[in-house]
């Protein structure tokens, strides 16, 4: 059977390697210990040796091309043997004994990296079992927690069917099967977390042998996140992201019988209620809280579970584990603040004209908020000063081709920044509708990854809390963020007279590595001009 040779990990910092030269060509006989290719890593050049005797069947990574650690770069097998599917044959990784990668290197014994199966369900071939791996659903996701298994061992599953509910750092999603078969084994139980790329369950394919259970020890459990996304041509790599449906519509609602009865009696849509019981079960107290705040209104404050009828208990100190989202926020903020050199620019904007626009829209029964106007103005200002629309990527500056404005949305467990794409080309009303819709789904944790990644700049507005001024932390890969305070009547000097104007403070945080003070200042001045003379937004 064809054996993959995987890109070895040769240093703790190595994430990928470049093939400098193949020393063997397809069809050549190779013997164990023989050098087959020259490899360039971030540290040095080394030779990759064969681990097995056989013939080089296929080269997957050409000379001068790179591949992530763990990705298959070639196949060795019997003379004339055909590698399963051409192009990107399923690596054997999930098969009973992945053992060591079929390549070894002379140089410093590298920490043995678990053979990372190239992305998605790597069929183990031979008709035994298919590993279902934890998909990577966002760029920051390194692990995911199984909230609930929707199938149990022995259940038939068909391609496209939801298998489990997954909690990531950003949202809850469903994991789908892409093969027909029977759920043979669950590796990661409910409320347990696993790193991206590790197997969480095994399917016995349709017509496959019932329980060809590989020795449990053999189940590869990569400790490091498998660089799944970057693997060359992974068979079904895009699938997990694209096809994972948002865990809303049509999903069974878990609720206690009593909660259902009360909801029915009170004419309350139980789907609108966030359950606090196990697996999100909606229980009586959730219904009572929802009724108390009038369900339709977005939750103004996080629901504090468990304080009902126990005022004394509210004062008792307690500990709780960090949620996945909180964990990532904590980690990212600790990295960003010392890692990205911030500088801050503040100015005051006279908002009388902008407020008038909102009032005129209101008179036309159009819902437009001052914040929508700010989003639009930021987008226009970015378009006019594209030097601010940049990201630092390694030693390169990426100039973004579109103007995508993120908006910070507070959630019970943290915050998330859904992105309004091409905000500079959208009308106020379109922006308004989109902001509302994204914010609502963000609160339900139902955003799709593509809806909160990327972006040119973020707008964070704490004006509704009466905050006059604050500074915000940049959300990489973006290079700037605008912190907006409240619009308030203030006495200002105009033509030597004291007059009252509606003033708002805007503070821009910039990544000084790629944005300088003058660029930020020009952008901010443009933004002020647009907000003080909103008719300019029309041009």
């Amino acid at each position, binding site marked *: 059977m064809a054996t993959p040779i995987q890109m070895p990990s040769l240093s703790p910092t190595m994430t990928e390697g470049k093939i400098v030269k193949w020393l063997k060509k397809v069809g050549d006989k190779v013997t164990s210990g023989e050098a087959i290719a020259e490899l360039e890593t971030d540290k040095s050049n080394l030779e990759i040796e064969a681990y097995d005797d056989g013939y080089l069947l296929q080269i997957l990574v050409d000379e001068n091309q790179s591949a992530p650690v763990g990705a298959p770069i070639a196949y060795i097998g019997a003379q004339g043997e055909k590698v399963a599917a051409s192009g990107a044959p399923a690596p054997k990784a999930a098969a009973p004994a992945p053992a060591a990668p079929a390549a070894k290197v002379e140089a410093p014994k590298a920490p043995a990296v678990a053979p990372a199966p190239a992305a998605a369900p790597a069929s183990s071939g031979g008709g035994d079992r298919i590993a279902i791996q934890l998909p990577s659903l966002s760029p920051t996701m390194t692990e995911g927690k199984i909230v609930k298994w929707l199938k149990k061992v022995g259940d038939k599953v068909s391609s496209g069917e939801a298998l489990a509910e997954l909690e990531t750092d950003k949202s809850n999603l469903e994991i789908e099967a892409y093969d027909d078969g029977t759920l043979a084994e669950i590796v990661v139980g409910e409320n347990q977390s696993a790193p991206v790329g590790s197997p969480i369950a095994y399917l016995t394919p349709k017509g496959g042998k019932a329980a060809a259970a590989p020795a449990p020890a053999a189940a590869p459990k990569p400790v490091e996140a498998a660089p799944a996304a970057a693997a060359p041509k992974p068979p079904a790599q895009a699938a997990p992201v694209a096809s994972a449906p948002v865990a809303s519509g049509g999903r069974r609602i878990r609720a206690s*019988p*009593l909660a259902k*009865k009360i909801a029915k009696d009170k004419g309350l849509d139980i789907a609108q209620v966030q359950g606090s019981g196990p697996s999100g079960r909606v*229980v*009586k107290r959730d219904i009572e809280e929802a009724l108390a705040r009038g369900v339709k209104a977005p939750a103004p404050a996080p629901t504090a*579970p*468990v304080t009902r*009828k*126990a005022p004394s208990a509210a004062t008792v100190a307690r500990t*709780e584990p960090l949620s996945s989202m909180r964990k990532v926020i904590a980690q990212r903020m600790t990295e960003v603040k010392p890692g990205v050199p911030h500088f801050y620019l503040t100015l005051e904007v006279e908002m009388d004209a902008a407020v008038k626009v909102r009032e005129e829209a209101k008179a036309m029964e159009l819902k437009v908020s001052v914040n929508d106007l700010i989003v639009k103005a930021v987008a226009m200002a970015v378009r006019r000063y594209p030097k601010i629309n940049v990201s630092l990527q390694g030693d390169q500056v990426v100039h973004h081709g579109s103007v995508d404005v993120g908006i910070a949305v507070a959630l019970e467990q943290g915050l998330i920044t859904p992105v309004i794409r091409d905000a500079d080309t959208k009308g106020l009303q379109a922006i308004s509708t989109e902001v509302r819709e994204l914010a609502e789904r963000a609160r339900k944790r139902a955003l799709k990854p593509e809806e909160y990644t990327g972006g040119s700049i973020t707008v964070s507005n704490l004006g509704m809390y009466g905050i006059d001024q604050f500074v915000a932390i940049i959300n990489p890969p973006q290079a700037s963020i605008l912190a907006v305070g409240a619009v308030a009547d203030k006495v200002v000097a105009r033509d030597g007279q004291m007059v009252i104007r509606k003033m708002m403070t805007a503070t821009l945080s910039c990544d000084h590595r790629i944005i300088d003070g003058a660029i930020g200042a020009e952008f901010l001045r443009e933004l002020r001009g647009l907000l003080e003379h909103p008719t300019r937004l029309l041009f």
Partner: protein
Amino acid sequence: MPELMYREALNQALAEEMERDANVFLIGEEVGRYNGAFKVSQGLLDKFGSARIIDAPISELGFGGMSVGAAMVGLRPVVEMMTWNFAILAMDQIVNNAAKLRHMSGGQLRCPIVFRGPGGAGGRLSSQHSQSLEANYAHFPGLKVIAPATPADAKGMLKSAIRDENPVIMFEGERLYALKGEVPEGEHVVPLGKADVKREGTDVTVITWSRMYYFCMQAAEELAKEGISVEVLDLRTLRPLDEEAILASVRKTNRAVIVEEGWALAGIGASVVDIIQSKAFDELDAPVERVTGLDVNMSYAANLENATQPDAPKIIAAVKKVLYRQGA
């Protein structure tokens, strides 16, 4: 109201009923000259004589059967089993005769008899002498099964049992006999088939009987400190179950925990859960929890014996679970 020990309350009930009705007699091992293995019949031999306080040989099947015969012909025997573990020997007389005579004779015969004795763990008596066997007897139509927890209920229910026209199985407890409580004097009769709300509460119903009642009260006290209001429902009678009382309480609190000293499988609690789920499904805010003895034979070692049985911390955990509280 005078405070009496559980055994004194039983003694009072026996004496009062024997005075009231000359057909009542007590039979069992050591009930006469030794004044009872657990001193329940203290002084009764002197008072009523050996014709009505009868020392039996160690032959549960024998004196059990004699007593069923006596009941058939008009007497009202009270049969003391030294413990219910020994009464297993008399199972045939209890189940095949006492429980079925009325039915088999087409109503011509009746069997007004009380079988009574201690059940449950007595304290380091190991597996053969520590069983909670009430579920076995509650299984049979034709029997009534009672298991009072307090001295007052012990007195009132024994009096009702003696007056009942059908066989009654009464579970007392080695660890209950010395417990004290207020007991009404004289004609204090507690009806069979009626559960009793021993503590009112609003957040959760804890359903129990016999000795477990004390752990439930202890747990309720602890939980009250955390602001959790526990209603304790003492079933008292296990056959027939007081469905009305169970459902009324669960409808009030929407949550239930059932605490049973015996084993979980085919236990009384399983039947209580069935009543709740079938008749109060829409009232439930959480699955009903059970706290039972562990599914093992009782150990002799004291630490293992304690670990095997329900206790207040286990009950507290179950209550928190049905309340979706942390620390469950």
